[in-house]
């Protein structure tokens, strides 16, 4: 389970990169690629091993004030990303 103070960091196995040809952010890993949708890309960009889930949510909230409450989306994506081992969950 993640909480608002969870501080996710990118698994060193993966590299996050903007791909012009795909028009999206992708995660690159040995011989593979995951395409991220728009919101997943926005969240991943903010993950630096220092910001907490709450800080990430606030940053996005400020960037997309018309987006309503984003905390569920952020929590859900980060939970999935930890399950998929894209992210480490450092408390």
């Amino acid at each position, binding site marked *: 389970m993640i909480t608002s103070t969870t501080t996710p960091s990118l698994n060193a*196995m993966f*590299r996050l990169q903007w791909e012009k040809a795909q028009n999206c952010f*992708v995660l*690159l*890993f*040995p*011989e593979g690629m995951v395409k991220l949708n728009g919101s997943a890309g926005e969240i991943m960009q903010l993950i630096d091993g220092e910001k907490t889930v709450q800080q990430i949510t606030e940053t996005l909230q400020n960037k997309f004030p018309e987006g309503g409450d984003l905390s569920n989306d952020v929590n859900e994506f980060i939970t999935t990303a930890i399950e998929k081992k894209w992210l480490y969950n450092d408390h």
Partner: protein
Amino acid sequence: MTIKQTKKLANKQENTQKEATPTTTVGPPLWLLAELTYDCPLHCPYCSNPTELGDTEKELTTQEWCQVFTQAREMGAVQLGFSGGEPLLRKDLEVLVKHARELGFYTNLITSGIGLTEKRIAKLKVAGLDHIQISFQGADPEVNDAIAGRGNAYQQKFNMAKSVKAQGYPMVLNFVISKQNIAQIPEIMRLSCELEADYVELATAQYYGWAYTNRDHLLPSKEQLVESERLVNEFRDQQQGKGPHFIFVTPDYFETRPKACMNGWGTTFLTVTPDGSALPCHSAKMLPLTFPNVKDKSVSDIWQQDFSFDYFRGDDWMPQPCKGCDEKEKDFGGCRCQAYMMTGDMHKTDPVCSKSEDHHLIQQAIESATNPSKAIEKRINHTANKHGKDSSLNITRVKV
């Protein structure tokens, strides 16, 4: 060099978004496999390199390779595999890696581990190499070195795998599974844990190049495969999400539907061979088609306009039963090379498919593997070697 790397790549692609519906324009070659040289210090009987290796003097230069990378990256290629033969034999590997990494490629080194040193691993890291894959032939020196046809290969691989992890790379270990080592699956899994691999491919040999010649000596029985898969599943259950991720690839000979070869001809993969031939699949050179060369044409001309790259795109080329089959979007009629090797006609349905009129050829191959009639042939390497003085390279044919 084993063939499955490229064939497997598509399976690792995941999406968090729905693909746009395909349009008539061709997508970019996402994966570029650069076969830097066919030279190799090993003699694996399952090697998928062509049995005629060609002339090392005709290898592309550093500049020519860099230009290929630049052109492919401009089109949207993102994964780059440095392969061979043994890519470490190219002295300019670091230069090539650096150029590719600066372009934004994810760079993969696919190596036998022979010729690697701690210093070279560090230099490649500085150049920007993202990942190293080391192939093993077995879980101990006896089995490994007998298959590889070279003494001390195992110890070298073991030491280098340790060093790759110590220097912070993601590491994939690749074990080509055949009759010769299938009994070692439990030891192989233990070794992989000890070496702290991130991914481990337990890939049964696919039958191209030398592997096709030696098929009777390689193809395991159905019973052996079922038992191995059971052992792998049992091991996975005990892992509780820790340790290496094991990928078990069964040979398509025991399936009733073919693999979606190369994720579809000319859709995703581009191989460039040591002399600059551009291929939609790395065994395609055997087909009676004329393939272009990167020395004569740009990568985008090749990908978008060349006759050979367009030849098996879509389904206009398909004969029956594929043409009228509702699974053709799934497997594209299977592997063109396999159809050609087994039936002599590259347009035919892949014999692996149970709907194919040639399916009995697969049954015969399985039968024939229970009782090989000729001796195993070890891969022949160049006699005059451009890259090194290793005397083992002068062995032309070793029968065991």
